[in-house]
């Protein structure tokens, strides 16, 4: 016993002056909500998908992150001969001693400088990271003051183009290639030789961490235990993936912000929808009475106005989602990344908005919920109107 939908569609259409502002208001709320969620998604994706399940990362016991950790050259030499470690065809153990440092590099936009993470890796550093692939230029050569940087960073920092250079400590480093980190945290890094970095940055015989590939799953367990149990080493080993997942905390503020902002803005949108729907009911008093005279029940009047509110909001939701997708696509096309400060390392990390179909569904559900809430009381008022209102009001 429901009125035809075309009745609602045309009513939304003929009252476009009143409905447009509500549609745009809902569109704004939905687009902000979807974009914030998309950003949280991007952050989660980059932290969540970093690392290789076969790898183990070693840091100093008590260090939360690589940047605050110290591993000595001596420890590296001891551990590299552990028999749990896999070997390259050439018989080299798959282990990389690494040094992470922050260097301040000018932004392309001219808006000052920002810290970026410079990672020194040893011979097997690239081999251990299947997510990182060279896409342009070449890998750095040892002793030449060369770096290979992520393409995404190159879009943000000046001097990061191939052939460009930037100041790092007392020296200038030349960029010789770009790599792609497949959306992982490595997309926020610049790489060079670890031993060269030690000397440039005066680190003596200290690295930050070791990255190791044990032979197999069983070797991984025994290797991890062995590091943990060796009191003299005072090191901690954990899976590389596990380590990066713990750094994921940065996505939480964006999710909370999306939730809070979404909630606050949706209250406004609900009131806007309510206003529009109350006005709609008021101007259609006689029409509602007429429908009742024709035999439509109170229930069908309620459904009719709820549907109209939902329709209005769905239009707003569609516009909002389209705007969010448009913004994301424009940013992606222009290579614009969103930078955020990593509070552990104070390095700028780059993220992209990631909009997936389920986020669009979420945005639409959000919009329709706004519409239903906003039209509930107007719909009930419409249903309570006496039937004779069809004959009394003009």
């Amino acid at each position, binding site marked *: *016993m429901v*009125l*035809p939908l*075309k*009745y609602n569609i*045309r*009513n939304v*259409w*003929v009252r476009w002056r009143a409905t447009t502002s509500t549609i745009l208001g809902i569109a704004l709320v939905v687009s902000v909500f979807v974009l914030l969620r998309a950003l949280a998604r991007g952050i989660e994706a980059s932290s969540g998908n970093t690392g290789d399940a076969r790898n183990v990362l070693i840091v100093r016991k008590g260090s939360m992150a690589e940047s605050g950790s110290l591993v000595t050259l001596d420890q590296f030499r001891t551990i590299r001969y552990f028999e749990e470690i896999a070997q390259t065809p050439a018989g080299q153990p798959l282990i990389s001693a690494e040094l992470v440092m922050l260097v301040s590099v000018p932004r392309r936009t001219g808006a000052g400088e920002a810290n970026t993470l410079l990672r020194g890796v040893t011979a097997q550093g690239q081999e251990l990271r299947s997510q990182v692939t060279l896409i342009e230029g070449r890998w750095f050569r040892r002793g030449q003051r060369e770096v290979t940087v992520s393409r995404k960073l190159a879009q943000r920092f000046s001097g990061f183009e191939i052939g460009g250079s930037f100041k790092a400590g007392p020296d200038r480093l030349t960029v010789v290639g770009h790599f792609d980190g497949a959306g992982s945290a490595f997309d926020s890094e610049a790489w060079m030789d670890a031993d060269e970095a030690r000397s440039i940055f005066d680190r003596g015989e200290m690295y930050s961490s070791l990255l190791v590939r044990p032979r197999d799953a069983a070797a991984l367990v025994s290797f991890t235990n062995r590091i943990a149990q060796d009191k003299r080493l005072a090191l901690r080993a954990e899976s590389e993936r596990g380590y990066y997942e713990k750094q994921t905390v940065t996505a939480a503020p964006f999710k909370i912000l999306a939730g809070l902002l979404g909630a606050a803005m949706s209250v406004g949108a609900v009131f806007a929808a309510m206003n529009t729907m109350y006005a709609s009911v008021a101007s259609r008093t*006689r*029409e509602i009475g*007429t*429908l*009742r*005279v*024709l*035999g*439509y*029940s*109170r*229930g069908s009047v309620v459904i009719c106005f709820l549907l109209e509110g939902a329709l209005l909001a769905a239009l707003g939701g569609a516009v909002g989602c389209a705007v969010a997708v448009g913004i994301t696509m424009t940013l992606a096309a222009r290579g614009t990344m969103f930078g955020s400060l990593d509070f552990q390392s104070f390095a700028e990390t780059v993220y992209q908005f990631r909009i997936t179909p389920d986020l669009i569904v979420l945005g639409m559900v959000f919009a329709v919920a706004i519409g239903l809430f906003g039209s509930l009381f107007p719909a009930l008022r419409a249903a309570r109107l*006496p*039937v*004779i209102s*069809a*004959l009394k009001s*003009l």
Partner: protein
Amino acid sequence: METSHGPVEPIVQIRDLTKIYRQGDIDVTALAGVSLDIAPGEFVVLMGPSGSGKSTLLHLLAGIDRATSGTVLVQGINIANLNESELAGWRNQNVGFVFQSFNLIPVLTAAENVELPLLLTALSRSERKAQVRTALELVGLGDRAHHRPDQLSGGQQQRVAIARAIATDPALLVADEPTGNLDAKSAADVLNLLQRLSREAGKTVIMVTHDPKAASYGTRSLHLEKGEVERDVRATSFTP
């Protein structure tokens, strides 16, 4: 044979019908104990000064409002015993209402307006379309099916409203000053149409009007005064 000339069972039986509107602490008696019977096929014209209770009587027998006391039986059914939703269904099937200001839905075409009461029935889409076409042709607007109300003259709009009122083929047709907003020519068209519906389709028509000329289309005229039936006159010229 008892069939042809026996007393006809009235379609509407009204007994001691009273309606009192309470406004603050003042009671306004709109109907003061009206009793009357209406036979099937009658064209009753309700007249009387403004405020005499004509509209109130119409609303009560059309199931649009509830009486303070007294009963309305339509085809033997006491409509006071129906709950809200039963009453809505009952109106849909048994009463066609024609308003002074047409009350068409502005965003719907003539055909869509006529279809509205049919959407509440079990009819199929094609049956509905056929019924809409029949109703529109009956009121002489078969060629205006896809016009919106604002593309029609007042007289045409009122004929669409009549088509909508008869769409579910109700026995009772109720009209409150249907010519009040029309010019003389359009008014005559509407009155002729209502007369035809009563004579040819056997509808029982109950119409409120101020216009003495309009009264001449009916078979019977009731004069109300202060909520009571003051005069009840049957037209002698009428032959059922």
